[in-house]
């Protein structure tokens, strides 16, 4: 059930310097996301979806405006503090899974815990195995990513995103590289997580009508074109 305000974006603009001058990717966007909500961000290519996601994850800084997540003004944190904050507060899921190819699935999850150091050392391994159980790939814990299918790798990436028990999960086209059956499974997984209290923000091109989203934000030319609450 949605609760307090977890994300507050106020008048955020983002400009990039390109050869022909400044390119504005986001124009004065303001929005709020409540804790436990499952939000979809949609829009055409170049509409600013990924840029907005980068603002929410602290991967990039806004040119103007502020981003407050879980009480932290993330736009004012330096790179190192932001990385630690991100590891503890936001789980990121990428389109191409981005698992470390030289580490096993289990080690990929343990590495995320190791960096952030919020989970007690003795609990880490069990937690990682529990997460793999949660996403349904417990039997693949000691395999390298290359030995898994795309869907399994994405499940592993979701498990890694949950490694430090962050309140929010942000996914950038997490099913863009998967078949329709696997896409459905991943969407169900996000839905389950949302029901367990995680805030889930997903940039997607998929059909969202039956995927358990609470809200849909549509971006167009860097602006929030529509905001729709789903039943």
């Amino acid at each position, binding site marked *: 059930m949605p609760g307090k305000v977890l994300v507050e974006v106020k008048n955020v603009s983002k400009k990039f310097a390109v050869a022909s001058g400044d390119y504005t990717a986001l124009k004065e966007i303001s929005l709020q996301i409540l804790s436990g909500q499952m939000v979809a961000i949609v829009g055409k290519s170049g509409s600013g979806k990924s840029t907005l996601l980068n603002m929410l994850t602290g991967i990039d800084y806004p040119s103007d405006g502020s981003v407050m997540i879980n009480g932290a003004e993330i736009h004012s944190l330096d790179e190192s503090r932001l990385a630690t904050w991100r590891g503890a507060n936001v789980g990121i899921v990428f389109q191409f899974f981005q698992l*470390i190819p030289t580490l096993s699935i289990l080690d990929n999850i343990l590495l*995320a815990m*190791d960096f952030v150091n919020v989970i007690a050392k003795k609990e880490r391994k069990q937690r990682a195995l529990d997460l793999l159980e949660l996403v349904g790939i417990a039997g693949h814990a000691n395999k390298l990513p290359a030995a898994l299918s795309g869907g399994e790798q994405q499940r592993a990436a979701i498990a890694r995103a949950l490694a430090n028990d962050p309140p929010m999960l942000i996914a950038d086209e997490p099913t863009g590289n998967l078949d329709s059956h696997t896409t459905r499974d991943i969407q169900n997984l996000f839905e389950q997580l949302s029901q367990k209290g995680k805030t889930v923000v997903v940039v997607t091109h998929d059909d969202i009508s039956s995927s358990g989203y609470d809200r849909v934000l549509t971006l167009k030319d860097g602006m929030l074109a529509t905001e729709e609450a789903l039943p």
Partner: protein
Amino acid sequence: MSVRLKKALLEVWLNPARSVLMIMALGIGLWGLGSNLVSYSILNKDLNANFTGTKPPHAILKSKDFASLELSSFRARPEIDVAEFRDLSYQRIEVFPNQWIPLWVFGVEDFDNMEVASIYLEQGRKVPEPGTMLIERNGRLVSNLKLNSVARVQVKGKTPAVPISGISFDPAQAPATQDAFISSYVDKKTFSDITGEPANQRLIIRFRQVQSRQDVQHLIQGIIDEFRRNGMTVNTVDVPRFDQHPHQFQLNTLIALQGSIGFLALVMGAVLISQLMQAILAQQVRQIGILKAVGATRSQIFGIYLTMVLILGVVATLIAIPIALASGFAFARFVSTVLNFNIITTTLPFSNYLLLVSIGLLLPVLFTLPIIRRGTSIPVTEALSDYGINQYTSRLSTKTFACLPVSNSLRLSFRNLLRKKKRLAVTMFMIALGVAIFSAGFNVRQSLVVFLNDTKESMKYDVQVVLKNSISLEKLTGPFQSLNNLSQIESWSGGQGRLQSGVISATNGVGVVALPFDTKLMKWDVIEGRWLQPKDEIEVVINQRAADLLDSPVVGEMLVIGLKEKQLSARLVGVIKEFNVGKIYIDKEQYNVLVNPEGLVNSLMFTAKDRSYASVVDMKMDTESRIEKAELDVLYVMSQTERAKIIYDHLDIILTVFAFLSLIVLVVSALGMASTTGINILERTREIGVMRAIGATPKTIYGIFVSEGMILNSIGISIGILAGLPLSAIAARFFGNLILGHDVSLSFAFSVEGLAITLLTILFFGWLASRIPARKAIAVSTHEALSYE
């Protein structure tokens, strides 16, 4: 095990080719430097320990009046540590049938108690039986002499047979293999019996608490003055270098060479590692972005890559140190054999290992630190937007190569090379450096060959006979008038002279050579001033070694020279370059007027009609037979071929080491090239996929990468050969100074043979270094290449 450490370990483990390349680069450098360090530690200590272990004398006095010296009272003087009579006579010994070389016969007072200039017994009797002798062990390498064989010794024209009752080891003497003489040791009675010379006329002394030759000369002056007051005349005083072996200069040269090139190889290895690290970081940009995205701080990622470098450093160190120890000891043993001393070191000081480990771990870290720092500081957005195909923006090179009349693939190779200009510069620098050092090695070798040829050419005579004492011209030339193959005879005079040092009131022995100023038998390499001319004023020319003894006198100044109990002032008019002991050259007529009124001579120079090697050898054998029949008291007979060989033997070890070390540098250069091609391929894996997707065949891609390597190679070689020229000149100066002293340079020479070998070697290495990674590139499928992260 921490997951971060595991990641670092896996980076090393799962990329074996890359890791092996990095370990090899660092390992070869470490091995080079480590081997140098090990052999340096051993040689520097052991040669000195061998030499000083003999307790070399600080001063050697010769006097015919020592019969009146009460030795026990002399030994009781407070400044005297040890003193004993150790006579020395220069004779000759037959080493092979009708082949004679100089024999130094030492008359020893007490074989059981040698407290100065000690020798060590290796075989046979420690105390030779009367009428027998011990010979120095190195003498066996230049002769067919061995324990219990009977040697023929030539003394005053007679050839007594002297049994060899023992083999001794005397590390204070120059090795027979290098200086072509044998040392022997006999008791006092045998000394007089064999040589016919009275014993107890040569006193060797060690003083208490002297640090330098100046200290010795100061003390010896007091002793000489006191002897004079007591009616004893000291005929000659020699203050030898008691702090270093006669062949220390060879060791110094080797150590300087080894140290500099070994260090260079190590630095090149470290540069190579830094390049590879740069490539790894470039390849893993997205991975760095992901790590940051999942919560890693910059310092944590920095730590992972630094750990990786440390792991490589540890592995390279673990491999290189034992090999360095083995090769360092092996090299030390080789040098000890050449210079005739024993290796006594069995373990190295802990500090040596510590130094090697520190260098092995710290150097790669230091070289990669800025690269890792820069690579891990990339912002997350930038890292995540890297798609593995780098943009290329140099319009200049696009235009430049567009007009090249070459295939599109080759044009692409040219353009690709300019994509990473810094890497191109570093790689080219490494290849150029390798080629420069390698070719400089050949050029210096050529300089030495030229020097040897010049030395040989400067002496227009073929065989030289030098007597111990001067005799009349008729008596000396008589036996040789009908010598086979003889074209011309010229006679010279001279003997032992003494230079009055300007700094201290002591003397230094030099050979005085009195020869016709316009002799046609020598061609002089004058490095300062001029050669002798007919003048009323007495003129002398000295060689660079004599100049060193005199603390570099200025041409034009007056020298005081002791000649046969007389002292004369002569103007120094020139300094010549020769590989020889200190020599003073004076016009024969002036010499005769001053000290040789009877016109006696002590050496003959024979010129052969047929100057081929075999004919000159025959002529020398004929000379030896006539010497034996005429019972001449000869110091030595030497052909120019033998003299050149002696000089060459002194230099050969240096040249061999130089060639070996140059090759190491060249191999590291080739590794550098291999790594650059490998990095280029690694970075452009996705690009390779794109090229194959649009129709490039594996052959085309292979051709592009091999062409890149060969273009890089060719430019590097050209720069290297050009840079090798001034480097060769500098090296020729450096070696000239070390070998000849007195800041004398070897002439610059260019080795065409060396150029050919350098080109063939580096082109082969370069081809190999391009081919291996290029073949690897085409082994990747299009699908794999396109999905490469």
